């Protein structure tokens, strides 16, 4: 399908590390070390019975090392994956049906992420017992809490609500 999809024929060791999926979503070109955060941010923990495979620190043409996440039987929508841009801005999303990639796109920065991150400001109303879900505005270089307006630029993965 594409030249930067890292499943080159003949690279059997890649195949062993992360097997091909029949139908579902392959999230490729995730920055090394962020695969588990990708799953956390998508709320995928295997409890719904979906088959999930994760490849970490896989050699890559584009980066020295990358992570890959494959979710069998689930086609993730653009809205669902855009939130990944916060931790894996270079990720590519491959929608697979019957072993063929039928759709391939990049993650785009959303304007807003809801119920994904928790506010690091202990003085923020969202950190108490209030019946309110978190809401962050996505800035060019970080995110801003929609309630207390605190801007977070570094360490966004540590804010992922698990």
């Amino acid at each position: 399908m594409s030249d930067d999809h890292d499943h080159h024929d003949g690279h059997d060791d890649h195949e062993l590390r992360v097997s091909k999926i029949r139908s579902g979503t392959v999230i490729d070109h995730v920055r090394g070390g962020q695969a588990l955060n990708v799953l956390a941010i998508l709320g995928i923990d295997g409890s719904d019975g979906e088959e999930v495979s994760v490849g970490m620190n896989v050699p890559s043409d584009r980066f020295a090392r990358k992570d890959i996440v494959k979710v069998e039987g689930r086609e993730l929508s653009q809205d669902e994956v855009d939130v990944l841009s916060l931790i894996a801005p270079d990720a590519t999303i491959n929608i697979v049906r019957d072993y063929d990639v039928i759709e391939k796109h990049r993650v785009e920065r959303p304007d807003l992420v809801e119920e994904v991150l928790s506010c690091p400001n202990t003085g923020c109303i969202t950190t108490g017992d209030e019946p309110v879900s978190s809401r962050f505005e996505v800035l060019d270089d970080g995110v801003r809490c929609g309630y207390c307006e605190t801007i977070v630029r570094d360490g966004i993965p540590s804010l992922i609500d698990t």
Partner: protein
Amino acid sequence: MSHSLSATQNGEIQGLGKSQHERMRHDHLITSKQLSRADIETVLDRAAEIDADPSAVADRHANSVLGLLFFEPSTRTKMSFETAMKRLGGSVIDMGSIESSSVKKGETLADTVRVTEGYADALVLRHPKQGSATMASEFVDVPLLNAGDGAGHHPTQTLLDLYTIRENAGLDDLTIGIMGDLKYGRTVHSLSYALTNFDTRQHFISPESLQLPRDVVYDLHQQGERTQIREHDSLEEILPSLDVLYVTRIQRERFPDENEYQKIAGEYQIDLETLEDARDELTVMHPLPRVDEIAPEIDDTDHAAYFEQAHNGIPVRMALLDLLLENHTRGDTDE
């Protein structure tokens, strides 16, 4: 003013609220960031009318009730809202002491506001948590006014500050110095945001440890094409150019020891000698209470506007309540 008091054109946070929370009405006053120049002028014009002839509005809201929800003590702000509502002919209820209320029993703020909106035509909220007013406004239909949300916003203070500046120096082509604790002073942050609607030169004067937070500077630059922003560690060099000097208190607890505090805070106090180089028309403001930032000898000069500023809280809050209550009532009949 219609529904433009919470206009979304330049308020990013309000924009968020709009897209995600349909029930959020556009008749709350949460932050000074939500205020456009037209909004500000509407409020200040109404305040000026009321100031000129308070008797004209003495019965205007005779059947209205204002609910005061103060989750932390702020006697002056509370008294000011109470007086404003009573001078519009309305009445006021509050939740008594927190100690004996449902809040003590662990009730959420969301529940408290949903219950009390049934008792009142508008709510005033003061709460220690940042973002509390934004959240509360998403749960109620009556107008909600933020009277301070922790280190967040205090927009009614901002509006009375703007009113005072307009009365004394005008809001356009203004050179203002804002001095003192700029790091923790929410009054300062709110005022600075609001002033970006006007042609202003803003000079921030503080010790290095109490400079404006970078997030605030970021926002000012984002919003402030019409505004020039400069930071200084001493008043001396820019004092002669100022139309307004806004002084805030540097609190003792910001410093590790008394000596350090005395030494640093002393550099940001003003007296008659300090003001020798100032323009004759310089207006000196302070949100009060002051301790020793402004020597009492300045009180009797034409520079001093801080008591007038405190008094302006009444017409400005009357104007806001009048506009929001009128807006809300009209909105109801429209629907």
